[in-house]
């Protein structure tokens, strides 16, 4: 069975303009990312800022800036949509893969009515036009919990939560199979956040929409997604079912991220992770997380750990998990 979406060995580089004293000019933002998404599945991409989460999803949309170059395959229903670079993505963009951007509620055009803005991509992709498109815009607003008559209003007449819903409705305009949501609830109130997360869950359950949720907020992913990948320094440090990631984390970064997140009823200390993610303009020797790791081994300084099986659907890139990985490999 082919998955809805398969990302294989995705790399993204950014070419940086040369500045005065620096002639190093390439940032390797995404370094060989692999994952799959099934229809109706909710998958989380988590990590700190600067770990390559947003770059990864922008690459799937073919929306990287002109100074980016990429390698690897992104297969949608088995077809490699990145085969000819960004140009081959265009027919799929919005029609098959759609995205809700970070701060999308501020991305609506203030001088156009909300309904018109939702209808526009339909006309562009020849899904519907004119009255039919506007009618469908109303239906989409109903789907995300806004009365259809609100289509005749301007964005400033909407509250923050409504604007975020409207931008989700806009992303759904051409009936995509995959929705990429980049920090869809950051800057929203807890109650509105709960409403939006419930909406995303309902859409994926009812429409079979595959959702990739990009966020730094682990509890949000824990509540919404079945599986997740923890990204660090442009790589996947650990991936697996949410339950394994929380109860049996194999990578120290995953464990420390959870430990840095306060929980409502949680006991024990909340501790920050010292240091910050590394710059990605030079090749890093050994494990990229080693400088911040609380349990580094000697070999971590020069041997780069690979992502290996450490349990059911559970992979981690850590030398500490190697023994377990060897055991599993032998058992197979």
């Amino acid at each position, binding site marked *: 069975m082919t998955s809805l979406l398969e990302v294989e060995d995705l790399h993204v580089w950014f070419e940086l303009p040369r500045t005065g004293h620096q002639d190093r000019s390439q940032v390797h933002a995404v370094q060989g990312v692999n994952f799959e998404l099934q229809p109706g599945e909710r998958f989380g991409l988590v990590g700190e800022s600067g770990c390559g989460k947003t770059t990864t999803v922008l690459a799937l949309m073919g929306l990287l800036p002109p100074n980016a170059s990429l390698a690897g395959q992104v297969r949608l229903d088995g077809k490699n949509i990145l085969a000819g670079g960004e140009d081959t993505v265009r027919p799929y963009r919005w029609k098959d893969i759609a995205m809700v951007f970070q701060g999308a509620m501020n991305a609506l055009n203030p001088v156009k009515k909300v309904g018109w803005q939702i209808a526009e991509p339909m006309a562009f992709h020849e899904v519907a036009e004119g009255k039919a498109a506007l009618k469908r815009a109303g239906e989409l607003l109903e789907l995300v919990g806004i009365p259809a008559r609100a289509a005749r209003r301007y964005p400033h007449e909407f509250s923050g939560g409504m604007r975020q819903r409207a931008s989700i409705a806009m992303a759904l305009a051409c009936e995509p199979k995959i929705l990429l949501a980049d920090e869809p609830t950051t800057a929203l109130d807890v109650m509105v956040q709960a409403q939006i997360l419930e909406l995303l869950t309902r859409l994926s359950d009812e429409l079979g929409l595959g959702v990739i949720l990009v966020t730094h907020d682990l509890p949000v992913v824990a509540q919404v997604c079945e599986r997740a990948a923890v990204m660090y320094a442009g790589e996947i440090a650990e991936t697996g079912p949410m339950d394994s990631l*929380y109860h049996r984390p194999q990578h120290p970064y995953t464990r420390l991220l959870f430990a840095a997140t*306060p*929980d409502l009823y949680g006991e024990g200390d909340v501790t920050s992770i010292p240091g910050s993610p590394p710059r990605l303009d030079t090749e890093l020797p050994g494990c990229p997380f080693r400088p911040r790791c609380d349990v580094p081994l000697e070999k971590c300084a020069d041997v780069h750990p690979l992502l290996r099986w450490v349990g059911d659907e559970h992979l981690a890139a850590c030398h500490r998990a190697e023994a377990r990985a060897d055991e599993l490999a032998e058992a197979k």
Partner: protein
Amino acid sequence: MSETQAFVPPGSVSADAVGSQSAVAVTTVADREPQIGAPLLEVTDLVTHYPLRRGLIDTAARRPRLRVHAVDGVSFRLDRGEMMALVGESGCGKTSTVQTILGMVKPTSGAVRLNGTDIAGMADRQMRPLRRTVQMIYQDPYESLDPRFRVRQTVEEPMLVHGIGSSSADREQLAVSALEQAGLRPAELFLDRYPHELSGGQRQRVAIAAALVLGPQLLLADEPVSMLDVSVRAGVLSLLDSLRKDAEMGILMITHDLSTAAHFADKIAVMYLGRIVEQGTASEVVRNPQHPYTKALLSVVPKRDPRDRSAPQILTGETPDPILVPRGCRFNPRCPVAVDRCRTEDPALREPAPAAIGHLAACHLA
């Protein structure tokens, strides 16, 4: 001033610095000697309304002038060494409450007592020496620091405003100890940097140092970590926690994150439409909530454990308009358990029967 003097173990530096600075603070405000036994901050029936402009037609028709009921009768007290979290949705009046305490907004009525002295509505000139006692930390350290100021200038500016330190060397030493107290060690490394050379967490620590340099007794922190990366939030919160414990500061923290409040605050006050609807110790409010609004808020907080997926009790809509406050209990239009009485009678904040001492809720049914 020499580096050897600046380099003393961080703990002792901070304690000394704070001690000497607050001694200065007391002499400058000697005319309003703190009353013995008065709480650090006591807010009584605070009301802040913003009048709205009427249009020409409304004025001609003599329609009543509308008002935003931003803060509508808030009372609480905060002691030295205590951290209280104000939680609630946007527009519930958290920020207006803090701005009124700070004197940035004049209250419509009510009292704000700082060490027993009522500062509400005090003239700016009288207020000035007291400003040192109350310092504010803002949400976004990317916006709150001047991008063209070096760390040194940012931290020394408040001293220039308040005339602290006799020489620039003196001020530099105070800046160094404030930076070290804020966890930027060694401080000399940071003095000449610009904000763009610092990470988000470091920027927020610089903002905190600029507040500490005046030796405040009360810190008001408006969402101090919401703009920071998850990995550094705990560090900044622990810093606030240690200022409260070691330097005996009172901290009033605005947050929309109940998990953070539950973890770091001693007390939680839940605000809704300009009122405190529930307050008590953090563990009481979180584990034994009495007000339906608190219960709903707690139910939608995502838990870290994916096995712990309780059905969130989602309230429809957002905080209603503070211009037209509902009759009766102001929460009744969104309340899942409202009865007739709630639509006519405004409930007072009181101790409900099953709750612990000091745990208050404004609900007829609690």
